[in-house]
C-alpha cells in the first residue's frame, strides 16, 4: 500500500460528489449543480483541512470565476473560497457586492463579520452583526454578537447570552453546536475558567463531526494546561494536517517523546515546501514552530510580524507577543500591544505576556 485515499470510493460522500461531478461535466454551466458541488467541497475542506477541495470547488465555478459581476449565489460562494486562501480583499469585494444586491442575504453578512473579525475591524464587524439581527434565527444572530463581544472585553456577558440561546436551540445541527461550544470555551478561558472551558471543549469533541478548528483550539488548551499527554491521543490520526501536526509535535516535544524528532522534521519539510510554492498562509504556525520547537526566536518574530499584517485574531497577537518577549524586543510587538489596549481583550495569557513586555521597556 502506497497511499490511503481520504475518502473511499464507495463512501456515500464520495458517491454524492461523483454524481454531482458527472452531472456538472454533462452541463458545466448548470449553476445550481456547480454551486452544490462547490459547497460540498468547501465543507470537506473545512472538516479535513485539505486545500485541494477548495481547488476542486473553484474548478466547479470556473464559468463564473473571473466574471466581474457573477450572479448573487456565485458571489457568496466565490467569496468564501477566496477567504480560504486568505484573499480577504477579494472576498470582501464579492461580499460587499452581494449585500448591496441583496441586503437580506444573511450568509453574506455573516461572512463579512467573519472577515472583519480576522482583520480586527470590530466596528465593521458590529455593523455586520447588527444587519444579521433582523435576518437570522436567534442562535446565529446572538452568536455573531457574542463572538464580537467575547473578543472585545465582554467575555462574561457574551458567555451568558450565548449559553442561554444555545440551551433554547438544542436541535441545532452538529456543525453549529461545535462552533458555539468552541466559542463558549474560548470565552470561558478569557475569564480564567479553565474547568468550564474544558467542559465545552469536551462537549464539542463528542459531536459527531470533525472540525480542524476545534481540535486545534482544544489541543492548545491542553498544552497551556501543561497536559501534553492528553494531546497525543487527540491528534495522533491527524498528522496530515499541518496545523494539528504542529500541536502534536509540541506535545511530544514537551514529553520528550521519541516521535517528536520525526514530526519536527516533517513540519520543517512542509514549511520548506510551502516556501517553494510561495505560500504565506502558514506564518502563524511557522512562527510557533520556530519559537517553540526550533528555538529560532529571530525567525519566529519576523514571521509573527509578517502574519500580523494579514491576520489579527487573538492567537495571532499571542505569538507576536511571545516572540517579541523571547527576543527582548517590546517595540516589535507594539501593534499587538495596541490591539490589546484597543480591543480590551481579556485573555489572561496574553495580558501576562503584555505586562512582561511593558516592564521590559521601563
Amino acid at each position: 500500500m502506497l497511499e490511503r485515499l481520504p475518502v473511499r470510493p464507495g463512501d456515500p460522500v464520495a458517491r454524492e460528489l461523483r454524481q454531482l461531478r458527472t452531472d456538472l461535466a454533462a452541463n458545466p454551466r448548470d449553476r445550481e449543480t456547480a454551486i452544490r458541488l462547490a459547497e460540498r467541497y468547501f465543507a470537506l475542506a473545512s472538516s479535513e483541512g485539505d486545500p485541494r477541495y477548495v481547488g476542486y470547488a473553484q474548478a466547479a465555478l470556473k464559468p463564473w470565476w473571473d466574471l466581474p459581476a457573477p450572479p448573487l449565489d456565485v458571489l457568496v460562494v466565490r467569496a468564501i473560497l477566496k477567504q480560504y486562501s486568505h484573499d480577504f480583499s477579494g472576498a470582501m469585494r464579492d461580499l460587499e457586492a452581494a449585500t448591496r444586491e441583496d441586503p437580506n442575504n444573511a450568509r453574506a453578512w455573516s461572512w463579512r463579520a467573519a472577515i472583519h473579525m480576522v482583520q480586527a475591524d470590530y466596528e465593521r464587524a458590529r455593523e455586520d452583526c447588527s444587519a444579521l439581527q433582523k435576518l437570522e434565527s436567534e442562535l446565529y444572530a446572538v452568536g455573531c454578537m457574542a463572538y464580537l463581544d467575547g473578543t472585545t472585553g465582554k467575555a462574561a456577558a457574551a458567555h451568558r447570552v450565548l449559553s442561554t440561546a444555545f440551551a433554547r436551540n438544542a436541535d441545532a445541527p452538529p456543525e453549529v453546536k461545535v462552533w458555539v461550544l468552541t466559542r463558549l470555551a474560548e470565552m470561558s478561558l478569557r475569564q480564567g475558567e479553565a474547568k468550564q472551558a474544558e467542559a465545552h471543549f469536551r462537549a464539542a469533541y463528542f459531536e459527531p463531526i470533525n472540525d480542524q478548528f476545534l481540535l486545534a483550539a482544544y489541543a492548545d488548551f491542553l498544552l497551556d494546561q501543561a497536559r501534553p499527554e492528553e494531546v497525543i491521543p487527540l491528534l495522533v490520526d491527524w498528522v496530515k494536517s499541518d496545523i494539528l501536526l504542529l500541536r502534536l509535535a509540541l506535545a511530544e516535544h514537551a514529553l520528550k517523546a521519541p516521535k517528536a524528532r520525526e514530526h519536527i522534521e516533517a513540519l520543517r519539510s512542509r514549511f520548506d515546501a510551502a516556501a517553494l510554492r510561495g505560500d504565506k498562509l502558514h506564518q502563524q504556525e511557522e512562527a510557533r514552530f520556530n519559537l517553540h520547537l526550533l528555538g529560532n526566536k529571530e525567525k519566529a518574530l519576523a514571521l509573527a510580524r509578517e502574519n500580523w499584517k494579514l491576520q489579527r485574531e487573538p492567537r495571532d497577537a499571542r505569538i507576536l507577543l511571545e516572540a517579541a518577549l523571547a527576543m527582548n524586543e517590546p517595540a516589535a510587538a507594539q501593534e499587538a500591544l495596541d490591539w490589546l489596549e484597543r480591543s480590551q481583550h481579556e485573555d489572561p495569557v496574553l495580558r501576562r505576556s503584555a505586562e512582561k513586555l511593558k516592564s521590559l521597556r521601563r
Partner: protein
Amino acid sequence: MRTLLTLLLLFAVSPAHAHKPSDSYLAIRAEGSDLSGQWDIALRDLDFAIGLDDSGDGDITWGEVRAHHADIAAYALARLKLRSKGADCPAHATEFLVDDHSDGAYSVMRFAATCPEEVTTLEISYSLFADLDPQHRGLLRLEHGAATRTAIFGPERATQSFELAKISALTQFVDYAREGVWHIWIGFDHILFLLSLLLPAVLVLEGGGWRAVSRFPPAFWEVFKIVTSFTVAHSITLSLAALGVISLPSRLVESAIATSVVLAALNNVFPVVHGRRWMVAFAFGLIHGFGFASVLRDLGLPQGALLIALVGFNLGVEVGQLAIVSAFLPVAYVLRASWFYRRLVFFGGSIAIAVVAGIWLVERAFNMKIISP
C-alpha cells in the same frame, strides 16, 4: 434554511491550508538539443484525475500504480509542452518510480525529450490539473550546465520562457576533466590495479626472490611503460564505448575489472608474468576503459560537444592517475630495500588487494553486497 448549515463556519475564518496543498515537482535538465526530466506527482491527485484505485478499497497499491503507468504518462505529458525556437520538443516517459514526499506518496516519472536544434530558449507550458484544481502548482527546477533555476507554474502563469546561457567549450572541458579526476580518485578498483602493477617496479625478480633495484632510472622507465600502456589501452576502449561502437554489459565489465585486480595482485605474490608487465597493463587497461565509459555515460554526453567531453574526461583520468603515481614512486624508491616495503607493503599489500578485489568479484558477478566498493 439551506444557508444555515454553513453559516457556522463563518465566524471563525477557516484555518487556511491546514494541509499541504497540491504541488508537483518538475526537474528538467537541458543539454544541447536534449532535455531530460523527472516529474513527481502526488498519487492522490493522479487518482482524482484518472483513477488509480482499481480495487475501490481506498488504498492505492504499487500494483495499481504500475498498471496505470501508461495512463499517467499520457495524461501528464499531454499537459506539459516543451518548445524551443517555436518547435515542439516531444517528450516520452523513460522510467517510473515511487517516492515519499512530506505529504504522501508520489509517482516519479522520468522522461526525455529532443528538440530539433540546440535549446537556447526553453518555453514551458504547464497545465497539469489546471481544469480540476486551480490551486495546484507545478514547482520547476531547471538545470543547464552548472546553473539551476526555479519557477512556479499555475493557471495564472501557465507558460514561461527560460533563456539558457551558452556554455563555453572551455567550461564544458574543465567540467568533464574534473569528473575524470574525481572518478579515478574515488574509483578504488582502478587505483588498486595500478598499484598492483607499480608495487614491483622498484624491485627486480632474481633467482626466485625479489631484490631492490639499484638505480632510479630503470624503476622510472618501468613505471612509465606501465602507466603509458594502461592509458593508451583504456583510452581506446573508453572512446569506442563512449561513441557507441562497442557496448558490453556492465556486470561483465565490472566483474572483469575486479578479476584484473585479483590477477595483478596475485602475480606479485606468485610471479607468473614478469619483465613485461606493461603488456598486462595494456591488456587489462582495455577492460578498465569500458568501466570509465559507463561513468561517462551516466554523466550524460552532450551531443554537441562529444569530443570535448571525451577528451576532457580522459585527460582528467590521466591527471588523477599521474598524481597517484608521482606520490607513490619516490616513496617506494626510498623504502624499496627495507623489510617494511618488501614484506609488509609489497607482499602484505598485494595479498590485501587480492582479497578485497576477490570480494568485489563475488559481489559483482553474483550481484550481492558484502562490502561497499
